[in-house]
């Protein structure tokens, strides 16, 4: 369960958010808007929108910065007093945002409210999730104190493990249920991002701070502005307009020039537009679903990697090896595919360092994986591909290899030398 919630769902949420928002932006940018209701009601909005936006922005920033720079956050929180002050400020901001959110919900619930009329179902879903999320955050702040500290040792490592694509859920799986709820709801909000008005966060108007005040758009770019195509109308052919330069807006054409898609699909005479829309969506949905049904198992099968179990494999008796001698040994994949044949074998260079210690080197050169050879008289490993050379202890002697030879774990049991079968070492990792 915790694997699903903390190792699978976050990826689904982030991929959905990124792909969905991008798709919505590219395919239907018209639907991107803050969907402000200030025109309809602006008294309660003041007490709702201002606390909500300022409170939640600062709190989100704190979550984000502590995640990005946990070291700095830890240093900042070092002192007891500082920790107390920061927690108190955080709690105050959370309450501030919570009050704002309540006001925002109240003004939508009010009878006969104009805003209620314009609320979509997703608005309600979003408000409820946000309310539970902020409430759970406040409960956590009150009953699981010093979250700004334990956040650094629980959620942060987990988040980074997600970033590294090696999810490690143990630190969050052990947390109390309410905190897990807070985490899951956080990713639920990310998941909901592309299907709610939250998308307005994705288009902050920061460039406004430095762009010129006036925006003038030419049909042709101003550097090489040709004559306005005056003849075009009379000749009855469309001008060779640089449509893209003049068409920053596409999509719905109201109050936006040239916004017409190049080839508008026309409804059949008298056919209601909604029916055409419905059929379009139905076809897209059915086609997409069919493609997913075929694609998901195929791709998942392709991506599913065979992991050989790691087992201790005997490569010989201890007394077969002389101290200071390096010899080639071979061991087999513990669960080879029946058709693997000779490729199920793996070779290694085994060196008896002292009477009871061994080192097993991978034969793969750390440059590009070619097999290195042991030159006993020279006491060197040499690679035939690009001339990498290693000393007897695996250190790089010369040539392009970036790292010493990889080693396998070795142990001795019952007079036998055993090597732990391991994945092919990939240099750089």
């Amino acid at each position: 369960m915790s694997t699903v919630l903390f190792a699978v769902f976050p990826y689904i949420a982030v991929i959905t958010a990124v792909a969905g928002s991008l798709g919505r932006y590219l395919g239907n940018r018209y639907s991107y808007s803050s969907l402000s209701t200030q025109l309809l009601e602006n008294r309660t909005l003041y007490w709702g929108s201002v606390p909500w936006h300022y409170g939640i922005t600062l709190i989100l920033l704190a979550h984000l910065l502590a995640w990005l720079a946990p070291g700095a956050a830890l240093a900042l929180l070092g002192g007891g007093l500082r920790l107390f002050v920061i927690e108190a400020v955080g709690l105050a901001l959370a309450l501030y945002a919570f009050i704002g959110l309540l006001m925002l919900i109240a003004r939508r619930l009010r009878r006969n409210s104009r805003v209620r009329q314009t609320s979509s179902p997703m608005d309600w879903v979003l408000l409820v999730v946000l309310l539970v999320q902020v409430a759970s955050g406040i409960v956590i702040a009150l009953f699981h104190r010093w979250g700004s500290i334990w956040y650094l040792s629980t959620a942060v490592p987990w988040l980074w493990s997600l970033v590294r694509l090696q999810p490690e859920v143990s630190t969050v799986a052990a947390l109390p249920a309410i905190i897990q709820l807070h985490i899951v709801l956080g990713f639920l909000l990310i998941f909901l991002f592309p299907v709610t008005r939250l998308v307005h966060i994705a288009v902050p108007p920061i460039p406004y701070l430095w762009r010129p005040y006036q925006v003038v758009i030419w049909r042709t770019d101003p550097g090489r502005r040709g004559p306005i195509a005056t003849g075009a109308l009379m000749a009855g052919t469309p001008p060779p307009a640089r449509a893209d330069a003049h068409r920053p807006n596409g999509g719905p054409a109201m109050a936006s020039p040239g916004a017409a898609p190049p080839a508008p699909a026309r409804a059949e005479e008298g056919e209601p537009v909604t029916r055409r829309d419905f059929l379009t969506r139905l076809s897209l949905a059915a086609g997409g679903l069919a493609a997913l049904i075929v694609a998901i198992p195929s791709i998942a099968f392709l991506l599913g990697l065979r992991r050989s179990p790691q087992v201790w494999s005997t490569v010989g008796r201890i007394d077969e090896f002389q101290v200071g001698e390096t010899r080639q040994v071979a061991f087999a994949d513990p669960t080879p595919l029946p058709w693997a044949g000779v490729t199920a074998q793996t070779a290694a260079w085994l060196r008896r360092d002292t009477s009871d210690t061994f080192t097993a080197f991978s034969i793969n050169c750390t440059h590009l994986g070619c097999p290195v050879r042991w030159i006993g008289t020279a006491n060197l490993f040499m690679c035939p591909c690009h001339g990498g050379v290693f000393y007897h202890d695996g250190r790089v002697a010369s040539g392009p290899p970036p790292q010493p030879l990889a080693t396998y774990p070795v142990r001795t049991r019952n007079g036998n030398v055993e090597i732990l079968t391991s994945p092919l070492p990939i240099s750089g990792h």
Partner: protein
Amino acid sequence: MNVRCQVSMVFHLDKCIGCHTCSLACKNLWTGRPGTEYMWWNNVETKPGTGYPTLYEDQEQYSGGWTVDGDRLKLRLGTRPRELFTLAFNPRLPSLDDYYEPWTYKYDDLIDAPPGDDQPVAVPISLVTREEMEISTGPNWDDDLGGSSIYAANDPNLQHLTEEERQRLLETERLVFFYLPRICNHCVNPSCVAACPAGAIYKRGEDGIVLVSQEKCMGWRMCVSGCPYKKVYFNWATGKSEKCILCYPRLETQQAPACMHSCVGRIRYLGVLLYDADRIEEVAKRPDAELVEAQRSLILDPFDPAVQRAAEANGLDAKVIEAAQRSPVYRYVKVWRLALPLHPEFRTLPSLFYVPPLLPVTGTVDDGVYDTSADLFSSLEHARLPIRYMASLFTAGDEQEVVGVYRKMLALRIFKRAQTVGDIAEVDVLKAMAEAGTTAEELEAIYHLTSLADFDQRFVIPPFAREAAIELLEVTQAQQEGGGMGFLRAPRRGL
């Protein structure tokens, strides 16, 4: 010299009869969709009056347009960071109540009501909430209420009048009003463009039409506050701002905008102006008293060979220059100096101009007798609607500019009366012409364009690249039901 072309309009207010046909033509064409019911891209308001939205001219309240701070031109809204900090709640935004809550009636009740003792009635329902509502105000609620103490008396322009003048305007027999049709000014220095955080509003380079990119608009609402004329509207249903598009699909197919096309009084003139884009900022920073003249100087003479060369170098076609030479707007604004911008002190350099109305100025009522005044000259000083009021509307307080306009209009009147009725001595005619600094040829030309001009003389534009104009007009016939004119894809609100 950076010559650009601007589509521009003149309203001859003397000819406006306040019939609102323009507003309805516009409404039928563009703003019948959900969320736009309250918008009147073209509205006609009664002056003196509070206008639409209420008190839009009061920039103390709405902070629209520009101010000059020392050497710098600044948005009245404040600095850019300040603007971004008020995204969540814009304190300068008018609410729907400052416009009005749109409604319709339950017409079905008239037909479906069961038999009863009372006449069935159609109750009004709000077009926002779809609930029954009490109508307390509506579009043009103050129509013709020239002397009313709640509407006319609160006109911000009356501040510049003396208390006595103000009181007189409220007296039943002395009250006076005229009509002011307004659409987006498609300003040369638009403050809505400058205020838009998303960069969604832009001015078209070729014809100067100011448009909102419906895709880029994110509903931050700063344009609504930024525009001092309140001619950008927020569509509450789609979360996007919309505004007058000067019927660009019609212009591109050589048709007049709907409002102009439908104008009963033929008060509108449409043509192009050439102007020097390099001087915009300098002109917008002039002191109030110089603004009108400075804006006139921004407009370039299309007969000047130097201008023609610069225009061609800038990629303007010969047909554009030719259209500028025949432009009725150029003559009214620059040659005859009759047409003035609305509220130049907002410093957006509006591209729409108004010939101020003469009739209410010269006529007075004394003891119940309407007197058109024998002495037409002295009447200007005793104008029924004070010159100061007109100066507040059209010249940022510069009365001399208004007086100049009126002298020329009066000279025309005297000149034509002497010609057609013949009861004015020639010496008086010549005196009036000398005071107005005009000639007989000029007066004939003004007379012709004002009274006799046919459509081709009132509407002169070069051929513009037509973009998708044809397609728009064709397709929207099938689309108006679902989306509205201009939408090829139903303008569905985002989630």
